[in-house]
């Protein structure tokens, strides 16, 4: 059905049989055409293009119609807007032709004919359309054949034919189409309504095992997501990238963000770190990207002077990158818990939510070490003196901590600050009661 430039150079043309094409080019790669996926792709582009105007309509099978007159000022004029449309399509991996005309049908015909023109006035439209080949205006094959037989080759030829005769022979619909293209008849369109959630899938042309190639493909989806979010003035906190193998289940890579974002470049960066953490067991056939929870993203005011403490987005991006590679649980803050047992008095908490000590609490506890061991380590007692790399000299204490009888984690300990022979300061305790013994619990560092 279609072929690229290299195939064309070897003599392959659309419409010839696959066997004939193979005879012309033995290394020809033939792929079946999937109209369903073409429409899916077109819908994806429509969701992306909705950032330029709310009035996006599908012109099946292969075109999108955007009503842009209301958005031209915002996007810096028709030329700039067309450039950003084409650039975005390129980033998503599509080759697009764009034409601009006062009527939707006229613009679609111009674009399909490859005439990338920008016609702003109705007078110029008539002559521009007149030169277009007839098959754009006439869909039905038998009508097209009959018109060719009477010598009509272009849209201009068709418009020159007597209207009542045309209507009698080929039906009113043909004339209506022509009038809509010229703006003589209303051409209402059902505008595309973007879905509430973002789901996009990309089948890879070949099986991929390299993370870098996956990233290249994933970037197309991220660009699509960025446009989709821009159209809704929203952002996402959580993405899900799925990698599909030939069989078996997909690998799901969740990507979390500290603050909502819709920056495709940033998504790509996070996906790079995330992809670096997974081992691809089998080649990947397809990618899918899902973003279910879209939150409003208000435009942040740009700081006039960069704060010496750095911009908040630098901080967010750092945390997101670290978490993408190391996992969410490995990147955290520490906070104080109102609890007498030392091992529970400090906890790993969500960043920036750490709670400091409240006023008036300061005096209640004694000296605490910077490092707490994950679990108290038993140390020897020789001649009634605790030993850790030699006899320990007790400097301060005892500080008695008895607590936790209510939750089964009861402790009864006497804490001391002690000095090792190497003059390091350690925090040790002796359990009270019959099974007494010395334990190392912290280092003063």
């Amino acid at each position: 059905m279609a072929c690229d430039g290299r195939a064309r150079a070897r003599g392959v043309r659309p419409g010839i049989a696959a066997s004939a094409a193979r005879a012309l080019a033995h290394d020809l790669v033939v792929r079946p055409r999937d109209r369903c996926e073409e429409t899916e792709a077109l819908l994806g582009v429509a969701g992306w293009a909705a950032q330029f105007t709310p009035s996006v309509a599908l012109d099946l099978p292969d075109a999108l119609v955007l009503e842009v007159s209301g958005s031209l000022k915002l996007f810096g004029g028709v030329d700039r807007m067309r450039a950003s449309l084409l650039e975005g399509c390129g980033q998503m991996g599509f080759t697009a032709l764009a034409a601009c005309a006062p009527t939707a049908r006229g613009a679609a015909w111009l674009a399909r004919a490859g005439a990338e023109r920008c016609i702003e006035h109705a007078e110029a439209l008539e002559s521009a359309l007149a030169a277009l080949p007839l098959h754009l205006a006439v869909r039905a094959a038998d009508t097209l054949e009959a018109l060719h037989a009477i010598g009509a080759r272009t849209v201009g030829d068709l418009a020159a034919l007597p209207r009542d005769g045309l209507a009698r022979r080929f039906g009113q619909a043909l004339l209506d189409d022509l009038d809509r293209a010229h703006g003589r008849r209303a051409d209402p369109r059902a505008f595309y309504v973007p879905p509430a959630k973002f789901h996009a899938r990309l089948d890879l042309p070949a099986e991929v095992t390299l993370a870098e190639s996956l990233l290249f493909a994933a970037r197309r989806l991220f660009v699509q997501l960025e446009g989709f979010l821009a159209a809704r003035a929203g952002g996402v906190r959580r993405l899900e990238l799925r990698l599909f193998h030939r069989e078996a289940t997909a690998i799901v890579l969740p990507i979390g963000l500290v603050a909502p974002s819709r920056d495709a470049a940033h998504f790509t960066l996070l996906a790079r770190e995330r992809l670096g953490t997974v081992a691809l067991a089998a080649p990947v056939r397809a990618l899918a990207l899902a973003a279910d929870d879209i939150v409003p993203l208000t435009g942040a005011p740009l700081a006039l002077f960069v704060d010496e403490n750095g911009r908040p987005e630098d901080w967010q991006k750092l945390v997101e990158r670290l978490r993408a590679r190391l996992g969410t649980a490995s990147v955290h803050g520490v906070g104080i818990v109102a609890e007498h047992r030392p091992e529970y008095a400090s906890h790993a908490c969500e960043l920036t939510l750490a709670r400091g000590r409240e006023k008036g609490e300061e005096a209640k506890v004694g000296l605490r070490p910077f490092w707490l061991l994950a679990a108290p380590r038993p140390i020897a007692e020789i001649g009634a003196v605790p030993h850790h790399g030699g006899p320990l000299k007790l400097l301060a204490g005892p500080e008695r901590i008895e607590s936790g009888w209510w939750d089964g984690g009861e402790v009864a300990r006497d804490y001391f600050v002690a000095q090792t022979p190497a003059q390091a300061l350690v925090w040790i305790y002796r359990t009270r009661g019959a099974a007494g013994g010395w334990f190392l619990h912290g280092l003063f560092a």
Partner: protein
Amino acid sequence: MGLADPGAPLAALLARPDIRRGDALAQVANPSVPTGFAALDAELPGGGWPTGCLTECLPAHEGIGELRILGPALAALSRAGKRLAWIAPPHLPYAPALDAAGIALPQLLIVRTAAARDALWAAEQALASAACGAVLIWPSAVKYAELRRLQLAAEKARALAVLFRPPRAAGEASPAALRLALHTAAGTLAVRILKRRGAVCAQPVVVNIGAPRAVDSAVPAPSPARSAHPQPCDA
């Protein structure tokens, strides 16, 4: 040029941070963070912990005061709204102690890593992001090329970057701008400056980082418990 007054341009030249003289401390390009210990500030170029370059801290033993010597600087940075990143710390940083040292807990970022490579990567990210006021790194093993990479990342950041390494690293070459070996001396901390920008420092700097007083009896007899509440110790 400079024929009329040859002294002035020379003085301007010598004030450049990348020119060092053997008889003085170098000028620093980035403002330093005061250590909180006057004796140590006097021996450091810029009068404090340098920013925008790597500092190596080589404690003779774990627990002799390698964090307490940084405490005042970290507290000041966190109170000024800067973030403090702790990359691959060897133990759990204990919030009550950090809080008691004056460090603002919401400014802390703890990164725990499984692999040595991840720690260096995380450190580089933290330095490169310009979002952190101080980056403390406990690498398990680090090669010269990796140190150089960290030093380059630190030069781009304006952060205090401290690398904690074992004492045997003192014999190895390092691109760090400041290298300190920490020893204990009669209850205080002796800081031997292995390397700094400027004149060589021959004498160790004795810093009183504050240690709790000795209790009267070496091994106190456990007293019968009356109170279920913790008692303040006499530190």
